């Protein structure tokens, strides 16, 4: 007997297949790592232009490289699909959200640092910065993990909150945790990419089409 097709499940599978390549993880990890490096450079060389402009550099470079990588690595292996406006908006929202969150945290800390403790709430955020960032990351990861159907984002969120809470109480430098988290996400992405490339080896287009 014919069964009513579960369109949501089909749409979810089609969408997921586009993010099983690990590219999202590699570039998100790269972004977090670069963001951590930016703060590190800024602290070591005291407000160096490189450190301060790192988030802007990342935004300008990561997204175009991600698009090119998608075209060169993912599309030849699993095919091309146009999800329409709704699907494109999802990807755009993810990147915009992640970058906005990163930038927001960066500027909030920079602003707080230059305020000289004139506002109590800023002092509170700075004093508990790692907890704020940890739970903020968990919220962002949960939100995007749910909307994108990517369960590994929950794991990243949990990892971030655990590392930052431990870091807060043990007293580990925030930047080190940030760089470690970025590296972990990036390495996971590389592992996923290797698996993806092995699972979907390149075939000649003509051989598939005919």
């Amino acid at each position, binding site marked *: 007997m014919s069964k009513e097709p579960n369109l949501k499940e089909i749409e979810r599978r089609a969408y997921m297949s586009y993010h099983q390549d690990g590219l999202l993880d590699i570039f998100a990890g790269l972004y977090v790592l670069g963001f951590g490096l930016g703060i590190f450079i800024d602290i070591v060389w005291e407000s160096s232009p490189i450190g301060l402009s790192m988030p802007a550099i990342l935004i300008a470079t990561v997204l175009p490289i991600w698009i090119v990588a998608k075209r060169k690595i993912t599309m030849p292996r699993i095919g091309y699909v146009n999800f329409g406006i709704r699907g494109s908006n999802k990807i755009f929202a993810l990147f915009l959200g992640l970058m906005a969150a990163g930038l927001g945290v960066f500027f909030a800390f920079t602003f707080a640092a230059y305020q000289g403790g004139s506002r109590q709430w800023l002092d509170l955020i700075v004093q508990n910065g790692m907890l704020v960032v940890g739970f903020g990351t968990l919220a962002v990861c949960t939100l995007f993990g749910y909307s994108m159907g990517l369960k590994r984002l929950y794991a990243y969120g949990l990892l971030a909150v655990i590392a930052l809470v431990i870091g807060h109480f043990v007293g580990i430098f925030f930047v080190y945790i940030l760089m470690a988290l970025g590296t972990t996400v990036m390495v996971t992405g590389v592992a996923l990419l290797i698996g993806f490339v092995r699972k979907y080896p390149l075939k000649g287009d003509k051989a*598939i089409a005919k």
Partner: protein
Amino acid sequence: MAQLYVVQSADFLFLQRQTQMTPGNLSAHLSKLEDAGYVEITKEFIDRKPHTALALTKKGRDAFKQYRRDIKQIAERLPE
């Protein structure tokens, strides 16, 4: 039909990966759908490479919607 219904357009390789069908089988299905006017095949260039995009026509979308309605009605009429 369901695969193409949830996207705007897709190519042959994507549909093959999603449906797990053999190229010959999928090709036969698509030919029948194209003959019925349900699927539109467009030749385009992506990164200067020729590319074949497949999309449901309005007639195809309407037919699929009607099919879903029919299946739902049949299911509702079935005894528990």
